[in-house]
């Protein structure tokens, strides 16, 4: 790559400083571009892999209305994946290449999806806690310095809030239901609470790349700030729902005007990040199988498009 002119460099810095948007045609530092590619790709992969844990209950949803809601959500997630891959493509990578990196493990997705969904209540709890945590992480990204990513996030966040409300509504219904349904909810909360807290990443002291991302206005809040915000938002919701969050250290701190809470089991998280989570292999295997089983279909579409002079062979 050509060395950037001092002028381009200072124009980029001014855009950042003035809270304006960097656009695809603009010059940007290589490290900024690489950071964005990594983050957007990881985010796109998370949408796609994230279809699996809930997708696990699509065929078994216990009412046709819930089935329709869940199916619409799966469809939204595939759509989010598409927007995000498109945003990544504005940075000069392509989707096929990112998919390869996902299935051979060179790029990550959110570790939360490496936990199993074991009852239909998990669907509600994922909506409430996992989508809730995702929203805390993602709302600030709507003001991210990179234009295409910020715009994708605006649309995604709107839909995510809708999913979160649907999740919470499902849980309210279950808590008003039978003992077995309430038990399912509490069990799901017990399993998902700590992994949700870990979605904000390691404690600030152990998060080496955060500072630069903050300077570039890709990231706007530290991991611990966002985690605290999530806990403060969620505790009253849990009370309203009537479930117990599985943390004996959880206590209102008058002085801070915030909830104190315990320390997640970071060693378990590290296992999951290193690929040893309960579902890491399963998730990637499924994605790989879909990709490989579909290769002949994509080839046929390309061959057809080449013969008939149409664009790249996806459904029109």
């Amino acid at each position, binding site marked *: 790559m050509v060395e950037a002119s001092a002028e381009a460099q200072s124009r980029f810095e001014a855009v950042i400083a003035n809270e304006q948007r960097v656009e695809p045609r603009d010059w940007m530092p290589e490290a900024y571009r690489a950071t964005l590619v990594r983050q957007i790709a990881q985010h796109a992969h998370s949408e*796609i892999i994230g*279809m*699996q844990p809930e*997708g696990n*209950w*699509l*065929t*078994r*949803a*216990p*009412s*046709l*209305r*819930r*089935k*329709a809601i869940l*199916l*619409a959500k*799966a*469809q939204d997630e*595939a*759509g989010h*994946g*598409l927007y995000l*891959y498109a945003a990544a493509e504005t940075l000069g990578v392509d989707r096929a290449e990112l998919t390869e990196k996902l299935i051979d493990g060179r790029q990550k997705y959110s570790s939360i999806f490496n936990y199993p969904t074991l009852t*239909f209540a998990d669907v509600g709890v994922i909506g409430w806690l996992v989508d809730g945590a995702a929203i805390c992480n993602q709302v600030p990204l709507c003001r991210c310095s990179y234009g295409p990513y910020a715009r994708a996030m605006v649309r995604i966040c709107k839909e995510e809030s809708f999913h979160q409300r649907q999740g919470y509504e*499902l849980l309210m*219904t*279950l808590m*008003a*239901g*039978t003992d*077995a*349904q309430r038990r399912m909810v509490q069990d799901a909360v017990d399993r998902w609470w700590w992994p949700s807290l870990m979605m904000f990443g390691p404690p600030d002291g152990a998060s080496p790349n955060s500072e630069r991302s903050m300077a570039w206005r890709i990231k706007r809040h530290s991991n611990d700030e966002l985690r605290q915000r999530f806990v403060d938002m969620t505790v009253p919701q849990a009370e309203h729902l009537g479930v117990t969050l599985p943390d004996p250290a959880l206590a209102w701190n008058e002085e801070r005007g915030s909830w104190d809470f315990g320390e997640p089991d970071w060693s378990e998280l590290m296992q999951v990040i290193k690929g040893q989570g309960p579902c890491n292999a399963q998730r990637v295997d*499924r*994605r790989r*199988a*879909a990709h490989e*089983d*579909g*290769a*002949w*279909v*994509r*080839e*046929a*579409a*390309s*061959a*057809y*498009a080449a*013969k*008939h002079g149409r664009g790249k*062979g*996806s*459904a*029109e």
Partner: protein
Amino acid sequence: PADLAAYCLMLGDDALVLSQRLIQWITRAPELEEEVALANLGLDLLGQARRLLTRAGQLDGTGRNEDELAYWREDFEYRNVRLVELENGDFAQCVARLLLFATAREELYRRLADHADPVLAAVAALGVKELAYHREYAQSWTLRLGDGTAHSRERMQAALDALWPWLDELFTPHEVELRLGVDPSDLREPVLASLAKVLDEATLSLPEAAPRAYVNGRAGRHGVHTEALGPLLAELQVVARAHPGATW
């Protein structure tokens, strides 16, 4: 109204069961665009199923709602044609089944859009548009796979050959249909003409396979299904049945 209820159940079960088969594709499709499209088709069919089952429950005097009908009937009480319940197979079979079903169902809905029953007419009127999109989607993939690579043509042809023998059941009248004056054998000619045109354009051969036999004269519309339906319903119903009387 008993006949009309039975008829709504037939059409509703077709939609519900095919929707379940499409849903099984989610997270397994060849491309993200297809994840979105197949979910979309599944949602359309699920919506039709919900309205038709609801109507059946109103008309049959039992007052059962859509969920009671979907989750608490046994497979011999399901009235769908066997085509929609067969296991998924590969993407070519997905496309082939959609092509056969959507072509026939669009044609049927077109005729039902002015049916005397306002609910059935409304489902059909909206359904014509939905099914036209499903047919177009299936046609566009039939073209791509048929006229794509040699390998894809072979797979698409094999899929059509495998599913063709189940098509005839969609044209074979049940006594209820005859009494209601909605004889599906009227669909045979326009549907076969439409399919022949698409297959020709897709450089595929029109299969010659004879229809699949019935069992002592009974098949899907009489509740005599294939071995594929039981496991499909077991999966569909398992959570609901583990919690009788619960609300979700």
